[in-house]
């Protein structure tokens, strides 16, 4: 007979402690996910008692580029992701390095840079909607005042630039938050290593490359993964800046799924949600791998 207790084996009663968490996970994640799979194979509109089973048609249409609105949203999202991940990580790491030492000035500046984080995305969106207004916004007004009218932009009204301006707003809003995470990570690096590097004649750049960068890797991984997921979920910022539904040049995956739900295409929106989940997973795994390789190279 198999032993239930003894060295190396937990008491069976201990498994009961997992039950509440497992139940919550099943109710709030497993069941909705399975429901989404089920809905994704239908043409249900979200309220009618009748629907047709369409098999994998919805997913096939999305995966084969049969829906250019979804493809555009994906492209916009990847552009947004790239700009936000690169700029936000660099900026927050740069700020963290500059403000690492605890002085009165650095504590004050940390607070200043962190401030946008505590604002709601909708407030941020409305502030930046004013900033980006082509006629009364401060940027174009300032450019006009110094005679640089040629550089005045339509900002969000320019379909080639719009998504990058939103990305810039996202970076402004969240760089301070990630700076704090980087500061915590940088403070874990032993000072001895820098001393040893300096004794070996390493300059500032070499210290960063061979000490800071490899040792801040776990923090960077967290920051990049967090920023990636954040970039896919920049829903309220987009709606605040671009209206509901946003125009095509500002549409990202989360807003596209929402618009499809609103358009009484529940089954199709569920298929989009599933693909959305797979894309986030793939991008996050790819990033983790790239980051590991980069830091191993350092």
């Amino acid at each position: 007979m198999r032993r239930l207790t003894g060295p190396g084996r937990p008491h069976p009663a201990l498994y009961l402690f997992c039950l509440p968490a497992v139940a919550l996970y099943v109710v709030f994640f497993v069941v909705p996910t399975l429901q989404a799979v089920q809905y994704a194979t239908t043409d249900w509109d979200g309220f009618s008692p009748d629907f047709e089973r369409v098999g994998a048609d919805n997913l096939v249409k999305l995966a084969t580029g049969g829906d250019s609105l979804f493809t555009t949203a994906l492209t916009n999202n990847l552009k947004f992701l790239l700009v936000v991940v690169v700029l936000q990580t660099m900026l927050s790491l740069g700020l963290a390095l500059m403000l690492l030492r605890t002085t009165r000035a650095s504590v004050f500046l940390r607070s200043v840079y962190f401030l946008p984080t505590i604002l709601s995305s909708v407030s941020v969106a409305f502030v930046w909607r004013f900033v980006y207004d082509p006629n009364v916004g401060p940027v174009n007004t300032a450019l006009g005042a110094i005679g640089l009218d040629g550089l005045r932009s339509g900002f969000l009204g320019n379909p080639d630039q719009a998504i990058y301006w939103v990305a810039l707003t996202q970076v402004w809003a969240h760089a301070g938050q990630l700076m704090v995470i980087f500061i915590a990570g940088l403070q874990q690096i032993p000072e001895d290593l820098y001393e040893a590097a300096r004794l070996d004649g390493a300059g500032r750049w070499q210290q960063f490359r061979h000490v800071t960068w490899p040792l801040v890797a776990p923090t960077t991984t967290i920051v990049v993964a967090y920023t990636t997921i954040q970039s896919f979920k920049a829903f309220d910022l987009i709606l605040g800046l671009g209206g509901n539904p946003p125009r095509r040049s500002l549409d990202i995956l989360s807003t596209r799924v929402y618009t499809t739900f609103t358009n009484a295409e529940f089954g199709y929106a569920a298929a989009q949600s599933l693909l959305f989940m797979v894309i986030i997973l793939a991008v996050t795994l790819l990033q983790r791998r790239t980051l590991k390789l980069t830091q191993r190279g350092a």
Partner: protein
Amino acid sequence: MPSRHLPITLDRRGLLGLMGASGLAYAATACAGPGSTSGGGGTAPTGGSATDTISFAHWRAEDQQVFDAIIKGFAGANADAGVEQDISPSQDYQSSAIQRLRGGEVGDAFTAFRGAQFEDMVSAGVFADLSQQDFVSAYSDRFLPVGQQDGTQYGLPYQVVFLMPIYNVDLFEKAGVSELPRDWDGFLALCETLRSADVTPIAWPGGDAGNAAQLFNSMTMNNAPSEDFGTRIEAGELKCTDDWFLKTLSQYAELAPYMQDNATGSAPEPLQQLFAEQKAGMLATGSYNIAAARALGAEFAMDLVSPITTTAAEARFEGVHNATFILGVNGASEKQETAVAWLEHLSDPEVAGEYANGTAQHVTVEGVEYTNPDLERIEPWLSRNTALAPRYQFLDLDVEAAVEAACVAVVGGQSPEQAAEEAQKIVDEQIG
């Protein structure tokens, strides 16, 4: 103390258990599968008494105080009854009202937008049938069909708005405009006259899809081959690449130089300010912005003008109206008698007048006396030959957005042909 590693292994029994649990979860999801619930519908009761406190769901936060006053009057006449307003922002209401109302917990009485939302709500059984209610006769026959489907009166459109540019009468007079244009050449000449007077002829909020598309109503009403062109585009009978739509897009391109700089990125609020400060002659949104301009300090007279995109002889319509804010009784509500009484109260011409003059909106109830000076000024438009706003014919929001976005793209510099092709590509994908 060193931690002891407890390996987690999955034996056959465990695997079977996991599969069983997954199967149960899937079965549970199947029980709550698509189409397994349905809305109420049915016929609203007649001759009941108002004895409950009901929820009234709508999207017009700006009307809250006026409704509060009307609710006081309702409660005064029905001692046991009350109304609580459940207000959502208009975009949220457009997106999620149907899901919130279906259960009947909120919105015993409610409102709907004309078009896709009304159609969907009727299909979902959210609207109870109001055909038997006596107070339906209080409404103008011209607007009642907006709340009908297959001959049944499900809702009562309450507001009438004119979705065509508003203009500064004083500024037009100062610029020497003595008569409003009756054709396209005349409209371009008007714009030129205003530009010569050193004002922006047309303030157009191209950065806000909803407001930007109001001009679409005027631009298409006379160009389109039929009044139901939106329905026909969705049916594949008309295309964005057809001559009439290309002509419309070309006319948008002709208007672009008369709009403020970078018009495709402009939000509505700064343009309301521009208009209120008399720096723009026209605000190309609708009569609903008159109150906003007044709130910003505009003291000049305002009226409505629609671009006529054809010759005077070819024009079928002078302008555009929309009948919306469709009142309904929730088919899933358990307080339908009070909800019906509330709608009856709103249908009283005196109460409708209180609403109209308090909110600066015309209403569809007949016999209302308008005392608000702006409403009085544009009251003649209620009986003029105006088209029912065509953009609300679209039932597919992606199709509507694609067609309207083509107009914005042209103002932004894209060629009409390319914009039309891109729009049609999306339409084709959507209607499949």
